[in-house]
């Protein structure tokens, strides 16, 4: 399979693609990942807050039935394999962005797959907060909304950043898969050249670029999480 991977034609062709297509592919992957992550956090953050605050012993107990439905819904969305989810949301993508194929259209299934995951990550970050600090805020007359915005979220910033970094790298992996439905980026290049046309070197280069991208996101995330944590004595 990899016999001719380093033949001179393969190398020159791969270099050509590296120069001509990869930069745009890299940009598309970056753009889709960032936009999908932002959208997933916008939807997932309030849901994560609800999951913690709305509990029976939470700061804003919500009806049991509502919490039950919320939990089931999140678990349901999380249990659908991404490949199948992409196909299932074709009609929805058409409704939202006007088309079901292409780079922008691939953002729709990405967000739908990622926001329940993000909600769970946010939930776990918020659960790390010392409950005594929340009690202290209550003893000072804080309202539930004030506790969420002034205590729970700011106090868990380092953990939120770590967890959103996990989300970003996971979403990055999904964007590669969305190459199958015509979502642009490095994934599409890898599939088009490597899978359909047996140009494995191109696939390899695309994968290396994806690895570098993951490293970059992870390093930035880890740096920020440590930098912003005031519990660490700098």
């Amino acid at each position, binding site marked *: 399979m990899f016999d001719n991977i380093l033949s001179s034609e393969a190398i020159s062709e791969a270099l050509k693609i590296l120069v001509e297509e990869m930069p745009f592919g890299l940009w598309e992957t970056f753009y889709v990942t960032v936009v999908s992550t932002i959208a997933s956090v916008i939807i997932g953050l309030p849901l994560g807050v609800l999951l913690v605050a709305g509990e029976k012993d939470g700061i804003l107990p919500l009806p049991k039935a509502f919490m039950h439905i919320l939990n089931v819904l999140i678990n349901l969305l999380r249990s659908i394999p991404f490949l199948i989810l992409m196909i299932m949301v074709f009609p929805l993508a058409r409704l939202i962005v006007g088309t079901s194929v292409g780079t922008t259209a691939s953002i729709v299934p990405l967000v739908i797959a990622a926001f329940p995951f993000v909600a769970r990550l946010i939930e776990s970050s918020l659960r790390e907060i010392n409950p005594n600090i929340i009690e202290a805020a209550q003893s000072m007359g804080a309202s539930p909304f004030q506790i969420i915005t*002034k205590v729970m979220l700011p106090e868990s910033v380092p953990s939120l950043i770590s967890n959103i970094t996990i989300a970003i790298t996971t979403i990055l992996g999904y964007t590669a898969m969305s190459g199958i439905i015509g979502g642009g980026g490095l994934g599409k290049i890898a599939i088009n050249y490597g899978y359909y046309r047996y140009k494995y070197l191109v696939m390899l280069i695309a994968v290396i670029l994806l690895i570098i991208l993951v490293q970059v996101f992870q390093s930035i995330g880890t740096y920020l999480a440590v930098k912003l944590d005031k519990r660490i*004595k700098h």
Partner: protein
Amino acid sequence: MIEIKNLSKSFSTADKQISALENINLTIQDGDIYGIIGMSGAGKSTLVRCINMLEQPTEGSVIIDGQDIGTLKETELRKIRRNVTMIFQGFNLLMQRNCLDNICFPLELAGVKKSDAKKKALELLNIVELPDKANAYPAQLSGGQQQRIAIARALATNPKVLLCDEATSALDPKTTHSILELIRDINKRLKITVIIITHQMSVVEDICTKVAILDEGKIVEEGDVSAIFANPKSNAAKRLVFPDGSNEVLLNDIKQRQLRVVFNGALAASEPLITKMAIDENIAANILYASTRCIGEKVYGSMILGFTDDDEIVSRAVNYLEKNNNIVIEEVNNNV
């Protein structure tokens, strides 16, 4: 004035009701430093949380300056909580905010203007003697310093009452003492009523004027600290006053008459009372038990003295000892 009337609190678990507090009645006067002491599990923390309604009592009422706060709506209750603030065993500072912003926090919650809040916070940093820690983060401070910041935070909204929930339990004895000094100072200077929850008798001894002893959810003894130290009546009080379990044990097998001498703040620390009795009255007393402690210059506690079984000697001893102020004598028999 805080009045706690017939207050009960029970928690329901899956299979049964657990009664945490039973029929508590307490009155705390303005300006008091009131200690509520008990072993762990006695219900102290639940009781203090009923005073600011962090725990809703199952029955009974908490009346602060004539207002029954149990009847208030959540939003009104939040305003009361600016008046009845709290400090904790674990300090509970916001770890991602610096000290200044921590002290500003309750003011921020109350909607006070940022510049005013900052001014007040700087003032409070001076009161708690940490003026140079405004920009430090809690993680950079020692436990005692963190508790000082927590005290400053609790004072930010100019409260009338400060609740201290095991506020010194996580601190070493020296730091404990300095924090208690600060609390005493705040009580005097700012005229703030202080309620101290603790399991340490030394804390009560150090700072409280009144004390209530809580045991298994009930108040078993209540009154002036000196009176309870001098003559603890309930078993719970005795356990706390004599923590090493050296309870008064009367010796049954010796043929002696026994007198209990209760020192209720007598100025006897410098007087060798028993020796003087031996010299002046020629009565030899056998010290069978003694547990006294000095609070300030005064002595509190009790002693059991043994005498020869002779009415004349015993009555002379009683007369001699009673001449001293603040000493109470009673004869005890073997089964007390």
